[in-house]
């Protein structure tokens, strides 16, 4: 009998591990996947384009249920794992399924943070995490008029844009005036503000949310200062937290998330973890690229070919709002010892700032023209000495190669 691999969670990270593992060692494991949702595995990043009406749900489901069947993988849909018994090497699902495992892969992802304010549990207050949330929002756009999105990060802006494109009157609330302050600098934020305003989004900046108002269902949002805003729908996009309750209960070592080593193994050698629920060398990630890197290493080890190690990721961020091109990576704020290259073309809505340190590129913010983001990302990762590229660096790869 083949050893059993049980996969907890059917998101982007875990299914990538399964896929790579099947390529490398198709006959090695008897694989079962537990999924709290029912669609198969979809590309979560593309929820925003679906919300905005640019892609259909079918477009983003990369691994429909049939995919599992074709490969002999057992998929438990709508049936999340509720307990892990490490002594008996057993998982138990919500519906009562109990499965033994020889290897366990935990990929429970993350959960949206909800602000601890009064009214947060009213009907019509949601996060933005999964297809169900998108469906709730799409339902709202068909019947309701006013939406408030709290949080001016990537997800918040994408949600606000999508709802607005679907015809709702949207107010985007942010606690400072620097939208995307995790991703861009103030100059790019100013361009972004202008663009969002052009798109008829109401911006409520420097606003601390005091309460969600409503009896049963949300009717508005109030703030520490200034007038209340009417709301039929409130989307909370103020951040995410690793979803580690299950792991914690099972006694797997966690800090902010499940602690893994460079092979994505947890402190329990039979248990691996990947994705937003892991903490590696002190870092947690909420972007897709590190997941791919983790999945590659993890699959190799599960396939028993493993010698590669995951050293951590340099991340880059993009905003999935069509017509707004925005990219940032590395230390784009800079500090002592850094030097800036700044290109501004406000009429064309282009802003680029590259941060250099010790003759290397260490960070980049691109707004309006992001075509060279990947190249800059590579230059940062490879720690290339850019002295000879410096004069044309800001103009991009096509100005620097063979020059």
């Amino acid at each position: 009998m083949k050893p059993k691999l049980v996969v907890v969670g059917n998101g982007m990270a875990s299914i990538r591990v399964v896929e790579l593992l099947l390529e490398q060692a198709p006959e090695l494991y008897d694989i079962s996947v537990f999924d709290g949702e029912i669609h198969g595995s979809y590309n979560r990043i593309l929820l925003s384009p679906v919300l905005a009406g640019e892609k259909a749900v079918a477009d983003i489901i990369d691994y429909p249920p049939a995919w599992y069947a074709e490969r002999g993988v057992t998929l438990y849909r709508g049936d999340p794992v509720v307990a892990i018994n490490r002594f008996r090497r057993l998982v138990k699902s919500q519906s009562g399924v109990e499965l033994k495992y020889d290897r366990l892969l935990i990929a429970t992802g993350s959960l949206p943070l909800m602000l601890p304010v009064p009214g947060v549990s009213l009907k019509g207050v949601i996060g933005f995490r999964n297809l169900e949330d998108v469906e709730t929002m799409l339902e709202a756009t068909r019947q309701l008029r006013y939406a408030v999105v709290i949080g001016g990060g990537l997800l918040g802006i994408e949600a606000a844009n999508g709802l607005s494109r679907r015809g709702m009157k949207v107010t985007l609330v942010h606690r400072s005036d620097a939208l995307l302050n995790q991703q861009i600098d103030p100059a790019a934020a100013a361009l972004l503000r202008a663009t969002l305003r052009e798109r008829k989004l109401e911006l409520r900046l420097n606003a601390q949310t005091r309460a969600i108002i409503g009896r049963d269902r949300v009717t508005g949002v109030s703030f520490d200062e200034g007038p209340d805003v009417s709301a039929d729908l409130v989307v909370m996009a103020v951040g995410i937290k690793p979803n580690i309750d299950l792991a914690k209960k099972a006694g797997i070592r966690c800090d902010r998330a499940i602690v893994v080593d460079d092979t994505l193994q947890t402190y329990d050698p039979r248990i691996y973890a990947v994705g937003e629920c892991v903490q590696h060398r002190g870092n947690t990630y909420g972007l897709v690229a590190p997941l791919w890197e983790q999945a590659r290493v993890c699959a190799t080890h599960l396939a028993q070919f493993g010698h590669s190690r995951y050293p951590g990721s340099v991340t880059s961020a993009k905003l999935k709002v069509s017509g707004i091109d925005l990219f940032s990576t590395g230390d784009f704020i800079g500090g002592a010892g850094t030097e800036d290259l700044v290109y501004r073309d406000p009429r064309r809505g282009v802003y680029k700032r590259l941060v250099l340190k010790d003759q290397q590129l260490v960070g980049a913010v691109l707004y309006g023209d992001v075509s060279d983001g990947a190249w800059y990302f590579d230059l940062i990762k490879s720690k290339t000495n850019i002295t000879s590229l410096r004069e044309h660096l800001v103009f991009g790869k096509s100005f620097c190669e063979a020059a």
Partner: protein
Amino acid sequence: MSAVRTTCPYCGVGCGVLATPNADGSAATIKGDPDHPANFGRLCVKGSALGETLGSSGRLLYPQIGTERVDWNTALDHVATGFNKIIAEHGPDAVAFYVSGQLLTEDYYVANKLMKGWIGSANIDTNSRLCMSSAVAGHKRAFGEDAVPICYEDLELADLIVLIGANIAWCHPILFQRIVRAKELRPAMRIVVVDPRRTDTCEAADLHLPIKAGSDVMLLNGLLAWLAQNRALDDAFIAEHTNGWNETLAVAQASGSTADIAAACGIDEAKLIEFYQLFAANEKVITGFSMGVNQSSSGTDKVNAIINCHLATGRIGRAGMGPFSITGQPNAMGGREVGGLANMLAAHMNLEQPEHRETVQTFWNSPKIASRGGLKAVELFDAIERGEVKAVWIMATNPVVSMPDADQAKRALEKCELVVVSDCIKATDTTAYADVLLPATGWAEKDGTVTNSERRVTRQHAFLPPSGEARHDWWIICEVAQRMGFQDGFDFDSAAAVFDEHARLSAFRNEVGSGRLFNLERLIGMTPAEFDALPPTQWPALNGVPLSGEGSGERLFEDHQFSTTDGRARFVATPARAPAGTLDAEFPLVLNTGRVRDHWHTMTRTGRSAKLAQHRAEPFMEIHADDAAQFGLTHGELGRLTTRWGSCVARVDTQGGSPRGSVFVPIHWNAQFASHGRIGALVNPVVDPISGEPEFKHTPVNVAPFVARWYGFAFSRQPLSAAGAGWWTRITGAQFTRYELAGTETVDDWPKFAADFLGVDALSEQNPANDWIDYADEKAGLYRAARVIDGRLEACLFVAPQASLPARAWLAGLFDKDVLDPADRKSLLAGRPAVAGVDAGPQVCSCFGVGRNTITDAIRKLGLTNAKEVTSAVKAGGNCGSCVPEIRRLLQEIAASPPIPEPVIDSADPRISASEASLSSVSTSPQPKEYS
């Protein structure tokens, strides 16, 4: 409108031009006149670009007193009263005219007449003093008259052409081309170039003698002695037609052996002897000379040293031989003919000769006649500064630029009580000092005659109406003369009438053989129609002689009769003298000045042409690479030149032909075109004792790097004030003005500096006029900005801490576009287009920056069938996966279409996208089915 026949206004070759003005008169189509015997239809680059120099922009359009516009009456009265008052109080020698070889003969004639016959002074001198007065003096000493013996055709008939101090490839291109063509047809013809610099003229030379600056007389004395020693003389000619041979030979022989001479000239003895042998062996030899000979403190001796060699071999007055003074201005010769210099009288008559004075005064019926020489150019400006000359009228020239010690000219004009300037250009370095400005007609508007280097008088015809209130110079002078109270001599009604009087004077008491070769008797009494139709005519223009061929006057001295009292030519002993300035530790190099190919004089005309700005855009200092290294100069960076008289800053060029120990700087740039480019301010004002011509080719100079805080350039459709930069040059472009800049002050706020410099009021994003792009690398001191208006590039500024900046040509091309396309806009501040290569096409995968063409190429070439394969081949789709649907679509499209052969892409042109290229290759060539 049909073409108008006229003459080029640049060098002394005097090419015929056919000008066809466009409808609004702002430009003209310019062609060479195929029937003109100077150029037979050819024109050089300057002449060809004449059409670009027209138009009223920059022209002086109305009279001014101070800065105030006045009418002509007021201006003319003001000048007449001013001159009269000063003459009344201080005598006639307290006033002066400083005129120009660019005046037409008719203008020149009345100016000379007014000064010498009515005011009664000889204080009329001309910029020709700076140019060919040594040739005049040499001719007069040798021949008794200022006469160029040869005609251009002789250049084609000669077996040896020696060019001394004449870069005719640049300065007289049409003559150069005639010589080059003659040599092509007759390769046995030999060309020797004597010039310290390796100029472009050397490209045509069989032998180049890079002699030490100022050692010409030594070389030529050596030649004379060598010819004597080697029995290469024409003893009969010497005996029958010359005087002064023995003294002259003795002086020449004192120069020493050929080894001594070679050492003194700094050349190889074998080359020296090769030259001497060539000279001896070729009967038909022409020695052409220009500024390298004339502009010297021993310029007149140099001219005579040349003529001595021709007289000693009898090589004069016959086809294909003779000394040949190549003049630099369109009408220097005409000025000489009318006597428009301070040491001449009129019509080749001499001030010193009482019977000549009597002849002229009688002919003019004038109240006075100047009886002694007036002040020559350098003396004149000295006298003005000393306050002895209190009124000066400057016509058609720019002495603040062109004089030696040119800052002295500034000081002089500043002190002068009354400075009148007639010009066609409003802003020149000299008009800045004018008390009265009189707008003169320009080249395209003038009507009269000019004489070229082969004594050929050619009509200049107007083909455009005068700009603004401009008037002809002869009219302005006559009006002032009449208002000064001199009615009778100045009531001309046309240029033709002036010319007729000039022709009559040339023939007055001038029986053929009586000594004055200059005679226009055949041209007397022409009707206006005849004057209009006057074909190019050489003088002497005598009645009853053939119009061409032998005896027609094509070449002079065919009868070996010279214009001296005894009819014999004179040898002039010319002991070699070193240049006046001696080199020392403080000023260790020789400053040499001259023209560049595509500019002329002080650029008032050529500076308006974008075409002519291309060749040499900036003032430069050409220096030998070893000298540059020794003095810490770097090619392409800036250097400062300093002499006892002044200093300037120019771009270092180590790739020209300057020898060790010498620096060449062009004469053209001035305060209108560069902040520190006026080389005249550095030139030693020492003059030749006989001709009064300054030594422009030899001033001791020091050089050092000019270190700026920053370097830059700007382009702008509107003219800018470049004063914000410490050093600047202004360059005319077709759609823009370009400024090369170097800053002497640190700039803290570049965006503000750039906005101020480019004339933007405020960088407010709200203002639709302010479409502003910039790029800053603050730490590296790099800043670039561009201003766009309605999608069209308006201006841009590039600065850097070093002189290395992007090439200007590509940026210049962007100004030809009415709208910048997105790729241009993106590339603009890079200063160049993206590196040539295949266009990746619109971006599909933004995570990895993969374009559609890259993906489709990979699909076709590698036969990819699914998105995953595409990802592994070109990375697209491998990160967020957003583009996977589009990749799938591309896969389907390609699967559904037949294979397309590999496109033939002109990779040099990145603007041709791969898809366009493949479309065109499909449509133009059927492809084999099995391909791919």
